[in-house]
């Protein structure tokens, strides 16, 4: 990665983190509930009354109730983990491969420049 690109990536990462965390510090006391829930209450508002979903999630049928918040976050973490795992694995391989390639190229150039040595 060239120096400029490296700098660009670092700046972008910082912007991303700030952007993600900014609302948390800006809106103290906000609940940060999902926009899904907001969507559902909008459905209620439009239909003018309580809308009863006609189907409940399979998992909630199996465990007879709502998925506990902690378990839900666990499952979300599993999803993130699977994704990050794959990305990290592939990126690790690619980065190392590039290093090896660069080393080999450098060696070959060396040989060309000093054929005797």
């Amino acid at each position, binding site marked *: *990665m060239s120096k400029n*690109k490296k700098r*660009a*990536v670092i700046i*972008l*990462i910082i*912007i*991303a*983190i700030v*952007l*993600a*965390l*900014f*609302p*948390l510090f*800006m*809106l103290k006391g*906000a*609940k*940060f*509930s*999902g*926009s*899904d*829930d*907001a*969507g*559902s209450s*909008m*459905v209620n*508002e*439009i*239909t003018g009354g309580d809308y009863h*979903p*006609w*189907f*409940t*999630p*399979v*998992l909630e049928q199996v465990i007879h109730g*709502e*998925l506990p*918040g902690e378990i*839900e976050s666990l*499952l*979300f*973490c*599993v*999803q*993130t983990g*699977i*994704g*990050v795992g*794959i*990305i990290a694995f*592939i*990126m690790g391989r*690619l*980065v190392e491969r*590039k290093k090896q390639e660069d080393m080999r190229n450098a060696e070959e150039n060396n040989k060309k420049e000093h054929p005797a040595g």
Partner: protein
Amino acid sequence: MVSLMLGVSPAVNAMHIMEGYLPAKYCIAWGIICVPFLILGYRSIQKKLKENRKNITLLAMAGAFIFVLSSLKIPSVTGSCSHMTGTGLGAILFGPSAVSILGIIVLIFQAVLLAHGGLTTLGANTFSMAIAGPFLSYGIYVLCNKLKVNRYVGIFLSAFIGDIFTYCVTSYELALAYPSKEGGVGASVIKFLGVYAPTQLPLAVLEGILTVIIIMALETYARSELKMAGFYFGGQKNEQK
């Protein structure tokens, strides 16, 4: 970076139309609309893999990117949470139809295990997140290339607009099923957009930035794979198509 954001907010639901919230006929209709796209997507993935087995690397990367981004619920300026789609990257690398397959895998995962989204609303959610969004992303990306917009700006715009559009389509899907008494579908669209759009806007920017970062990384470390997948390197060496 990702792990940092992971700590952000493991609170309740976000986006996708929830289980049981669409009347049955709409569920079926959206499902049917999705089928041809899924078949196209399956074929295009099959073709890519037949061309070269090694395309699996980038394909896995694009899939994993959707996995990660759609699992991270980020707080937004409106005081509620939502998550990104992550479909822009796949659309840019493999074209929009391939993403429909990657997207539906994530949606099924979330619907079954997380009670997030839903099996009955799978068709509608697939259409908005895995079909409409990526197709627009891809269109914007191609357009930006044609207009010779800076490549990274193009990628950013493509992911950004694709993300926003996903929520526009979601709003429309909900509005179709729940037209307002006064004003009908149009008024409902505006109401639902009012819920989703302001929340999603900063997240879409975030998605654009993350997509640019990952493409920068791939350009540095995975040049040969990108060429194989037919990625356009913006004027440099694009003899390989």
